[in-house]
């Protein structure tokens, strides 16, 4: 037809017959049933929180199939660990999971200490617990705000950020940074706490307890939120077992599994705290478990601050840049905000580890999504995705 092209008056961009998108979508769509829509959620979608990409097959608004596509934030942390000395690799651990970096600090430093047989002074152990738990609270608060934002409530995230800022202020005193914290050193921690740190932490604990009551009244008891979450995305023990889910997801399924209790590390044996395991295994159960964990972390921080002993924060001959790891193999696991954070370390006796494998809880937890999202509405799938508490840099590593 000559004359005006009504479809594309300003010149042809792509021929609609040949343009099918990228390799993954094309192959995904070959298995699609007739009459369905392939929808690409991400990597720049508002509720994937980072660069997770999910290809979804939709029938109307019902999700028939959902497949996460990973690798948009792959930074080769494991390979980097093999070409750097252990001392050089510590800052990397703050960048794997930007919401709970202290747990990753601990996983790597703990693995090296276990392999090298390095003792840690008692004061340093207390400081490790305090910083790790404060960081866990910050991570859970951040998740809480972002999760409610996924459900359409924009305001709570700004409240959560205020609390998180306070924790950042506290941790900044000892770590010097606010996001990619790297506080741990082999045989101790980098800096001792001062008066201001202790005062701010002591003030923060009762303050947050009051705030949590307000959050319950404002958000948890809200009828719209409850209707959106109750019964959505149930994940029982069997599915958690098959995919290796840990952390709040497994606990919401009714298993009181926590690395701090199961494989005790550091001085967690000394503290009196509960492992909250949820009444329901749906999204609301996971929500409640995380909020309960914040309270438990506050109890641990309170006890640790009270019993904080005097002494050195690092052993005298702490390993430095020229440290040679003894030959051997070890696995050290800690409880991160999202589940079991592990570091598998193999050394052949050189200055650099032979192999590092990082166990990211987010990766296992994300694997549940494809099965849990099947047959739900798109809005429910987003809620399930949010309830998994994913941090994409950690998933991709």
């Amino acid at each position, binding site marked *: 037809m000559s004359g005006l092209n*009504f*479809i*594309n*008056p*300003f010149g042809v*961009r*792509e021929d*609609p017959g040949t343009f099918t998108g990228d390799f993954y979508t094309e192959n995904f769509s070959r298995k699609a049933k007739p009459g369905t*829509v392939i*929808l*690409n959620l991400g990597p720049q*979608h*508002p*509720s994937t929180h980072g660069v997770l990409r999910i290809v979804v097959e*939709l029938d109307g*608004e019902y999700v028939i199939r959902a497949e996460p596509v990973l690798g948009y934030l792959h930074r080769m942390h494991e390979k980097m660990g093999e070409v750097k000395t252990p001392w050089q690799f510590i800052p990397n651990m703050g960048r794997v999971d930007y919401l709970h970096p202290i747990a990753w600090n601990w996983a790597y430093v703990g693995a090296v200490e276990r392999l090298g047989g390095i003792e840690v002074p008692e004061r340093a152990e207390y400081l490790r617990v305090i910083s790790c738990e404060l960081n866990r609270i910050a991570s859970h608060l951040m998740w809480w705000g972002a999760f*409610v*934002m*996924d*459900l*359409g*409530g*924009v*305001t709570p995230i*700004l*409240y959560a950020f*205020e609390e998180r800022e306070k924790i950042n202020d506290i941790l900044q005193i000892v770590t010097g940074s606010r996001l990619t914290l790297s506080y741990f050193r082999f045989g101790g921690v980098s800096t001792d706490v001062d008066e201001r740190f202790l005062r701010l932490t002591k003030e923060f604990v009762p303050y947050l307890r009051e705030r949590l009551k307000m959050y319950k009244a404002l958000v948890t008891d*809200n009828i*719209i*939120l409850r*209707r*959106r979450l109750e019964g959505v995305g149930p994940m029982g023990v069997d599915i958690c077992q098959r995919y290796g889910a840990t952390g709040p997801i497994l606990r919401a399924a009714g298993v009181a599994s926590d690395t701090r209790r199961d494989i005790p590390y550091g001085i967690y044996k000394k503290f009196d705290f509960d492992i909250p395991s949820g009444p329901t295994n749906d999204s609301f159960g996971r929500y409640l478990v995380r909020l309960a964990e914040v309270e438990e972390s506050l109890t641990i921080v309170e006890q640790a601050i009270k019993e904080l002993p005097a002494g050195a924060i690092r052993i005298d001959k702490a390993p430095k840049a020229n440290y040679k790891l003894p030959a051997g193999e070890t696995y050290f696991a800690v409880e991160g905000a999202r589940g079991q954070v592990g570091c598998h370390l193999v050394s052949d006796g050189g200055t650099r580890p032979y192999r590092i494998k990082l166990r990211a809880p987010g990766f296992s937890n994300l694997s549940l999504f494809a099965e849990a999202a099947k047959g739900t*509405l*798109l*809005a*429910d799938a*987003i809620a399930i995705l949010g309830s998994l508490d994913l941090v994409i840099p950690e998933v991709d590593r």
Partner: protein
Amino acid sequence: MELTIANFVQIVIACLLIIALMVGNAVIMVYIERKAAGFIQRRPGPYEVGPRGTIQAICDSMKLLGKQLFIPGNVDWLLYFLAPVMAFLPVLLLFLPIPFGKYLVALKVDDGILLILAFAGLGVISNILAGWASNNKYGLLGAARAVAQSVAYEIPMIMALLAVVFMAGSLNLSEIVERQGTWPWQWNIVFQPLACFIYFVSLVGETNRAPFDLPEAESELTAGFHTEYSGMGFALFFLSEYANMLLVSFVCATFFLGGYKGPILDGFWWTFIKAYAVMCLIVWLRWTFPRVRFDQLLNINWKWLLPLSILNLWVTAIVLKFIE
């Protein structure tokens, strides 16, 4: 009504004033909304541009005006450009029969509310066109949601308004205001609390505002039916959203809150005060609640609002019959 030159001139002038009102309202409401959101979220809101950030909205609209008209690939460009215009135009007509003051009515018609309800249905067509024409799956899903939602929430809305129409015995908006007294306890909200509540819930649904903002649903559909619009196309959707909000608030003020009548000195200022109070309530809702799910949205309507509004209509009719 006979169409004379005087009438025609009057309507043209009224239309121009209404356009001014719509644009002015959008500028003011953007400022109010952002400041209210800032207050609720404990942050300052806009404060850099102009005194206390008052010029921010104008600067934003200038930016939108200055943007390039961008067409994504493979769109139906006629419908793509028509949709924002169609969102904007019917709103103009909707304001004609609203009695802002006793004598401040653009078009005195006997069945004003019929005119409003008839043309209000046109708004959703622009949403369908926008979602369909922009060749985007998010847009299509948003458009599908918009249709189902708009069709559903129109019915209880009409039912709630009909109860008031029964009481007034007229479809004329001025008449309905005249039937109400000057004091708050003489307003229809006292005699028809259920109808007022149903109308308020449906107006939130009808104007696609949170917690019923499913056609836009940022965390699910990125921006819903206007995902592919930028610049002036987006600005027109934005403008029509605020104009629709203003319209339903004016209807709410007229039907349930006594219109231009007030305790001291009747006049158009009372209509505006009441309408903006309703708007502030809508803004407050948006920044407080999470979004409902789509099936829940329809359940609220078909299982609760519709039966309740029918019941309310029956009871009103029976009571009126007995009073006679």
